[in-house]
């Protein structure tokens, strides 16, 4: 094998390894977006428990019981994690 060819082969392998590492990192970030959002919602719920009127429902009106913003944030994170992230990561990992 000529030195030039070996050098090019090595560079090609390095590029492929770098691309695989980048894909893996991006896949991990996409999979982490949902849990990170859910964590933000949980931190909000702990920091401002009075925003969760379901915890103290007496005397609350209909809308105050329906509207629970920290749960909305957790719900968005869950929906993203279950419905959108897995397919996106699966397609990313199939990249040649």
């Amino acid at each position, binding site marked *: 094998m000529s030195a030039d060819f070996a050098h090019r082969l090595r560079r090609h392998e390095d590029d492929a390894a770098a691309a695989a590492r980048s894909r893996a990192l*991006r896949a991990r*970030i*996409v999979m982490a*977006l*949902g849990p990170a*959002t859910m964590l933000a919602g949980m931190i909000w719920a702990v920091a401002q428990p*009075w925003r969760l009127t379901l915890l103290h429902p007496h005397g609350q009106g209909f*809308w105050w019981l329906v*509207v629970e*913003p920290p749960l*909305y*944030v957790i*719900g*968005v*994170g869950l*929906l*993203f994690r279950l419905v*959108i*992230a897995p*397919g*996106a*990561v699966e*397609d*990313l990992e199939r*990249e040649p």
Partner: protein
Amino acid sequence: MIAGIMPQAEFVHWWFATGFLMLGLVLFSEALVGPEVWGRRPWRKYIWPGLCFVMGILMWPVMTFFTNSAIHMVAHGSWAEFLMFCGAAELGVARGKLHSQYWRLASSLALIVSGTAFLVHEQNHWLFARAAFLHHTLGWTALVFAAFPLMLALRPRSMFAASGFATFFIVLAVLLYCDRDVAPIFGHLSQFAGPQHR
């Protein structure tokens, strides 16, 4: 009687915040995986433009039932129009009916108009109340972040521009979640703002 069954304005802001949060996550993941991978499943291409368009439609009842002055109504009407315009342009691109990358300028224009509407319709100073502070912050945020869809129109494959555009929706969601009917901001609440709620 109707006032008794209507949700409060802050609830509507939180519902829209939830929609914008989902938009932000979708756009951020699209930026990370790239447009080619994102487009492998056709339904995925329609999520963000479809959600944007639907939110534009939902903004019309907000304009009708939740505005109490002409300028407030015009501001909400402009957000409704430009959410629909931006969503429609992106739907056209996703469907393949529109081909030019410069349709991305619709998003930039939407942010410029929306930001201007925020700033123009807020008559009070920054520390008048939390709502005034949020309006000023939202307005300037929209104007600054309008640079990202502009960059995307010029460089459609830029991950930096796509991530910046996604970040705008997450910031927008956080700011809208901070909204309260009448609340102080950094300890300031004008005596003209009315009694504090919750």
